[in-house]
């Protein structure tokens, strides 16, 4: 039995006229005023004489030509054998490198977080659509032409997705899941360990907006009632389903749904031809989801602070389950910081322990986690193992609208993230692709993961993901060779999205929030000084 609550409109129930005006202005702005045009190019486009890295992982095609007609690729081949019709807009590809558009299989581009984001939620909820657009355009700015948003506010995201599809605004291809079904929303026990008894009215409403009837009541249902509830949620029109295999917490992480309840969720989702995935952060919890028949696992390297077992890896490989890793989190500057912190903690622990009362098990656990049994070390080892054993790896990032910072919107953040933006929209995905190389892939394999495998994750490889005739023309033109050095994916010159040329510099077109450290609460007291 689901509780369908008309959640979206009620948040506007008591907004005053001024807020309504801001809201309408914001929505009008992004529907009307996009500066760079909204229709696909009418003329064919040809990129001539470039190095073409098609996403299949083979050797690149030197001195190649790609011809794009309408939304799709109509020819790919050596320059000498691809004819360019009259009236084609020709882009000189000499010294340039063409790849498929990148795909991030795990982002969160809406307001779906609690705790330290409450001020952000209170202020920006009425501008939700514009915020989502800002976030997804930030992704596109870095060449991410397809995103899968695996947790967030379904209805605003669908509105933005549909505006993009109608050509009214620029943006990546979007897949949205909405709630992680079974979890109770940003301010819930299963998502953030917050008991329902402590919530304000706003927090309860926000939970309902995110869950849309797919909250914690699902784990108390009979399989029959669950089947009905799953279908009611599917009727809202998500593009895929993500369910809580376990609690959100990494450890301890109890299981949410019994095996047969999981089979119900997967069955009903597959009947609609949609992908089903999970968050499952314990060994046994993960095993149950794989046995239930799911298509993709988000961050399978995170299994309750444990090393993933050979048995589980084999199951994943044998069944072709897609592994959407978080390579941006266990590599690069973020990783160096972790190592530094660990060294300091171990030095601290090496000092003699002088208390007569022996260590409690909680103290021992904390020491292990800060020292030689750090969970992050296990996540990195697991990621390396999944790569090594030949799992289908895609690039997920857990990118958030303003990165992983307490506070949310920039005016509510005390400090800039000390690490270079490893979970910010766009750049986080770039750091993730680079991270795959640090975790053991070649640059070529990393590009396959970021393109082809991303399309496999959405069961849409026939539509996009590689540079092949008949597929959608989502591609990037880079100034330097990413196969020589993966960081050259940062040398982005142009994005082409379903045949439309986009200059990354114009994105995002209508950002809602200021840069960090600029806007602040101002009661007018500055004038008094």
């Amino acid at each position: 039995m689901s509780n369908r609550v008309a959640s979206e409109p009620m948040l506007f129930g008591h907004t005053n006229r001024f807020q309504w005006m801001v809201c309408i202005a914001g929505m009008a702005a992004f529907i009307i005023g996009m500066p760079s045009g909204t229709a696909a190019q009418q003329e064919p486009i040809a990129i001539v004489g470039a190095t073409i890295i098609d996403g299949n992982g083979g050797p690149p095609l030197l001195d190649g030509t790609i011809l794009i007609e309408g939304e799709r690729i109509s020819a790919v081949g050596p320059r000498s054998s691809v004819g360019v019709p009259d009236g084609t807009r020709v882009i000189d590809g000499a010294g340039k490198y063409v790849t498929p558009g990148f795909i991030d299989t795990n982002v969160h581009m809406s307001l779906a977080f609690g705790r330290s984001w409450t001020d952000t939620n209170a202020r920006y909820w009425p501008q939700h659509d514009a915020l989502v657009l800002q976030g997804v355009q930030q992704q596109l700015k870095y060449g991410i032409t397809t995103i899968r948003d695996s947790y967030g506010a379904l209805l605003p995201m669908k509105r933005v997705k549909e505006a993009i599809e109608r050509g009214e605004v620029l943006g990546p291809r979007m897949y949205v899941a909405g709630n992680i079904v079974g979890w109770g929303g940003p301010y819930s026990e299963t998502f953030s360990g917050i008991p329902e008894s402590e919530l304000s009215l706003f927090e309860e409403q926000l939970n309902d907006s995110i869950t849309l009837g797919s909250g914690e009541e699902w784990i108390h249902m009979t399989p029959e009632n669950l089947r009905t509830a799953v279908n009611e949620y599917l009727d809202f029109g998500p593009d895929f389903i993500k369910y809580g295999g376990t609690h959100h917490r990494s450890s301890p992480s109890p299981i949410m749904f019994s095996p047969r309840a999981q089979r119900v969720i997967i069955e009903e989702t597959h009947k609609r031809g949609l992908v089903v995935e999970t968050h499952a952060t314990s060994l046994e919890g993960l095993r149950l989801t794989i046995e239930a028949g799911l298509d993709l696992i988000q961050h399978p390297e995170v299994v309750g602070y444990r090393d993933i077992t050979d048995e589980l890896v084999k199951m994943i490989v044998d069944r072709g389950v897609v592994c959407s890793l978080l390579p941006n989190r266990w590599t690069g500057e973020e990783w160096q910081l972790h190592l530094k912190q660990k060294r300091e903690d171990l030095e601290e622990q090496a000092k003699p322990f002088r208390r007569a009362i022996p260590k409690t098990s909680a103290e021992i656990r904390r020491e292990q986690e800060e020292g030689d049994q750090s969970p992050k070390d296990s996540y990195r080892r697991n990621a390396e193992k999944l790569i090594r054993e030949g799992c289908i790896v895609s690039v997920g990032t857990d990118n958030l609208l303003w990165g992983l910072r307490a506070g949310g919107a920039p005016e509510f953040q005390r400090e800039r993230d000390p690490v270079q933006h490893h979970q910010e929209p766009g750049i986080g995905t770039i750091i993730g692709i680079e991270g795959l190389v640090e975790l053991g892939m070649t640059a070529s394999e990393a590009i396959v993961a970021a393109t082809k495998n991303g399309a496999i994750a959405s069961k849409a490889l026939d539509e996009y993901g590689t540079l092949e005739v008949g597929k959608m023309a989502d591609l990037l033109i880079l100034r330097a060779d990413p196969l020589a050095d993966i960081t050259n994916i940062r040398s982005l010159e142009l994005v082409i999205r379903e045949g439309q040329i986009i200059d990354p510099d114009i994105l995002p077109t209508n950002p809602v929030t200021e840069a960090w450290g600029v806007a602040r609460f101002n009661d007018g007291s500055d004038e008094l000084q």
Partner: protein
Amino acid sequence: MNYILFIPKIRLDQVLRPRLASWVFLLLGFQFLSAPYPASSAQDAEAVTAIVGATVIDGNGGEPLTNATVVVRGKRIVAVGPSSAVDVPSGAQIIDATGKYLTPGFIDTNVHISPLSGEMTFARYWDRLDDVILQGAQEHLKYGITTVRDSYGVLEPLLEIRDKIARGEVIGPRLYVAGNIVGWGGTYSETFRGIPESELTFFQEQINDAFTHGSGEDWMNMTPEELRVAVRSYLDLGVDFIKYGGTTHAGYPALIPFSLEAQKVIVEETHNRGLVAETHSATLEGLRLSILAGIDLVQHPRSLGMSPITDELLELLVDNKVICSGLQNTLTGKVWEKHLRDQAAALRRQFLRDIEGRQAPKTTAEIRRDRQEAGIVVEVKRPNAERLIDAGCIVSVGTDNLVGQAPEFRREQKPEHQDPGIGTIIAIEGLVELGMTPSEAIVAATKHGAMACKALDEFGTVEVGKLADLNLLTANPLADIANVRKLEWTMKEGELIDPNTLPTDPIWSEWGVAMDAGKTPGR
């Protein structure tokens, strides 16, 4: 003995057996060295008692035997029959029980006689928990409860009192001890109370360890093979049965700590030692998995979040002969009347609030709260309890009686329906309110309790060869179940006990005693 400071070092992926064994030997050695209590009114092995002229209600549920004689030699019953057919051995102590009613001793399959929460209680009493436990145990015996199963508490002092009672050093009911609810992290933990480990004080961490003894939330991270090793280590501590978290503690939302395979490992290893495996399982799907894993008993299966119990589950419980240890004391009698009053008041309050007319519709959280406040939980739980009885499940009397916080820290008096001893009596009466006959209620309180201990061959009914755990009532409980309150004496393993002498050395006295009273009775 310092029960809170005793903390074995436990590391994930490491089995601590050698060090643990040395602690266990140390404990045992300490007990051998300490001076035994002088034997009080313990009878020597050959003392004979004959109870003559009573109506015997033997616990099997059939017709009572009028004008009967029961002969007890030493600890055991050696004869039961009509007085005309049973010879009273010469030299036997004869008890005239004419006009009175003899039943087996009652059995409570779910108590908590060590403190469970109340940090101040732990702070003040951590080195006297054994005294607190003994008082709680004896308060049960005072009402004729001759066997109790403590399904969650501080392990070491519980084991110590269990053993002292078994050796005859102190008077008390037969005590079965589980210790931790394995898989849960202790009284100040996520799984038990929703408290994150990062927020704990040093003392709270120590208390958790005194509960878990290595059987805490880490178990959820294990593979079934690792879990097997961990379960064996915990069993080596000498517990009498295993209770595991089939779900987490909270009613809503309730998650599942262990996969079916992991649960089967826990149940298997427990059964390998001939012990009972039981669970706390508060969702429909969670309870189903636990039954499939092979549990012997489920605690309070009427509590399934806000869900009515399904026909499928009732069938599984009956077919698998799972014992249903119910909380009948919380759904009947005076507390039921209070629930009904509270429900009426809540409905009125909600009605008045709703006609004020807030524009925004109710949130799902508000709807849930309204349902709970308006007694839907009770309205679901009581029908669940009635259906369990109606479906023919093997129902035993489990109360969740608790000693709770020390009386000096209580603002209000502890409610009677979960007080050690009287709570069990209220539960037995409650069974009749829920649909049983008095005869069936007595069977539930005796025979089924012994089945819950897998010890029906040893006690639970009044039969030749069994241990002499008996209650003598001055009025007929089959005529009116409330007559279980009319206890004249109780007998445990042949030893006659005057209820008025219990508890023998109370450590907690009256409720609401002032903080600085400094009174420590019995010391």
